[in-house]
């Protein structure tokens, strides 16, 4: 039981990383109908930025500063690279975001070097005993912060004027334009939010483990999460992200005993199996809107 609870909490912790990244993907998808493959690079850049800033201003000040800076970077990328591509086929745009990802990542890698950089977080690998179960503090922090961020984000979309504008654009860009909403700034804002979320996720990945050049691979785990939850559902992204984290962690704990023939490290690809199973039953994910087809 202890083992189960531990791996569950571990799963929720890493799941909240995936949830933050998935939210970024979904926010960009909802407003621009494009999947941004640049998220991994923003995540990496965020973690690296914190690892530099933390030495001067401390960890807790460095994280919001880095998130804002990465948000500005993402906004800049949207304005310069993505804006000319509005109306072009989505896959051309998706490939462009891969190009952006490569460029940002190579530049960031130059700041990492060959060593592992530390972000200077206060938790490290230390543990705390919660209801008789020993868990790592960082997983609790990740989960708690993600819950708070998600709550703020949902309140923003639900109650603020800008959030309303973003929902309107997600619903129908032309109609939103006709209501006086600046669709362009909604695009830019959604990239900025996604960049900030990615930076936060990057810091979480780096807590306890540090930043190295392979960190970006983790961001790809958000892809099964968004498909699982449905591409255009914010709630689905959170649920999908947490589900991916928990499944990965539980499979990692038990698969060695239950099904050793699947080979070690099967946990890393288990989310994709989960995604395939869900899609066989629900082609638009758990919460995704079914596409309305008209001739």
């Amino acid at each position: 039981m202890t083992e189960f609870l531990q791996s569950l909490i571990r799963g929720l912790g890493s799941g909240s990383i995936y949830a933050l990244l998935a939210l970024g993907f979904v926010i960009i998808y909802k407003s621009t109908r494009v999947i941004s493959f640049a998220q991994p690079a923003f995540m990496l850049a965020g973690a690296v930025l914190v690892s530099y800033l933390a030495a001067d201003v401390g960890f807790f000040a460095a994280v919001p500063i880095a998130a804002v800076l990465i948000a500005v970077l993402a906004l800049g990328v949207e304005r310069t690279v993505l804006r000319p591509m509005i109306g072009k086929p989505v896959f051309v745009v998706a490939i462009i975001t891969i190009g952006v990802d490569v460029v940002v990542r190579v530049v960031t890698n130059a700041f990492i070097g060959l060593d592992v950089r530390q972000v200077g977080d206060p938790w490290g690998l230390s543990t705390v005993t919660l209801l008789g179960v020993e868990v790592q503090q960082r997983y609790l922090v990740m989960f708690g912060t993600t819950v708070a961020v998600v709550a703020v984000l949902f309140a923003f979309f639900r109650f603020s004027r800008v959030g309303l504008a973003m929902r309107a654009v997600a619903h129908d860009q032309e109609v939103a334009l006709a209501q006086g909403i600046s669709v362009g700034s909604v695009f830019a804002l959604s990239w900025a939010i996604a960049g900030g979320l990615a930076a936060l996720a990057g810091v979480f990945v780096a807590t306890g483990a540090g930043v190295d050049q392979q960190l970006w691979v983790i961001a790809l785990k958000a892809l099964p999460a968004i498909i699982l939850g449905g591409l255009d559902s914010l709630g689905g992204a959170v649920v999908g992200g947490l589900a991916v984290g928990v499944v990965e962690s539980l499979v990692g704990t038990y698969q060695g005993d239950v099904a050793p023939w699947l080979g070690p490290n099967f946990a890393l690809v288990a989310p994709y199996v989960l995604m395939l199973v869900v899609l066989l039953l629900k082609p638009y994910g758990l919460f995704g809107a079914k596409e309305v087809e008209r001739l």
Partner: protein
Amino acid sequence: MKGRPDLYTSYAQDMAFLNTRPKRAWTGALVVVALLVPFAITDDLLMLLATGFVAAIGAIGLNIVTGYAGQVSLGHAFFLAIGAYTGAALSGDPDGRVLGFGVTSLPVWLLASGLVAGLAGLVVAPIAVRLRGLYLAIVTLGLVFLGEHVFREWTSLTGGPGVGRPAAVPELFGVRLDRPSEFFSGPQQLYLLMFVLLVIFAVLARNLVRSRIGRAFAAVRDRDLAAAVIGVDLTRYKALAFAVSSFYAGVAGSLLFVVNGFFDPGSFGLLLSVQYIAMVLIGGAGTISGAIMGALFITLLPRITRELPAVLPFISADATGAVTVFQVEAVLYGLLIVVFLIVEPRGLFGIWVRVRNYWRTWPFSY
């Protein structure tokens, strides 16, 4: 219709394989040049071009499913891997370290690789035909990750990560093509082999896409609902597109590492899939010649950036300087894709069309 080559009097004439005179002339000239090239350039460039030709076969395959039938697949690396391992296992040494059956005849393992990969495509198709757009793209991406896992763990077939296994043995009628013969060097023979195979598969693909099936593919791409209404069986044609594309991927995969002779399971990751998508998009989606141009462009790109330190002295050629050639290569790769697609979303083929249209009506090109 002498003297009026552009006047078509029948549908068959319009749909002909090479329907205009310049097309016939250019294609003929290109083939002649390609056949003369191996006697003019060095062996390492020949190997690179041979790899480019193989990549072109794979890109044509991806173009059939993505460019013509409109089903974006990021899973091409998975099918390439299936082809590569089928070919390598069939032609491998039966007494070797890894699985091998000793069937070294090239046509046999080439076709077998294609068929096995095509079957895998058919198996995946039922999932794929239910999904559209980005959902499909990411599910096929999942295939790549699952495939990577399987090939990493199945060490008796693949040799395991970091170790790898020998690639398929290119033996035609008892002659090892990768070893020098009386008249040609090994790279020259491989180059010619890959070129002939590319021509065969390109012609086959061109004929497929100008047939009833190709028109059905295009209808599915443009609007699948409308295609269904006019009587195109969506499930059937989407599955067919996947099967044909995977067949091409299997063939390309089995040849891809013949030039190097060795490969490991790490080669078939996300990056490979992205490269093939980039080939199709940079070349121009929905064109056979575009796929070939894109494949050659992407294959030669690292080589071109490798030459940069000679021109720009601040880039250091080894891994120690402030700006190394490897960084420049990676950045340039990303930047080129970005700039290219912003400036010309129809790709290299689009540029060619613009050039062609300029000269067609020259000097009245407006």
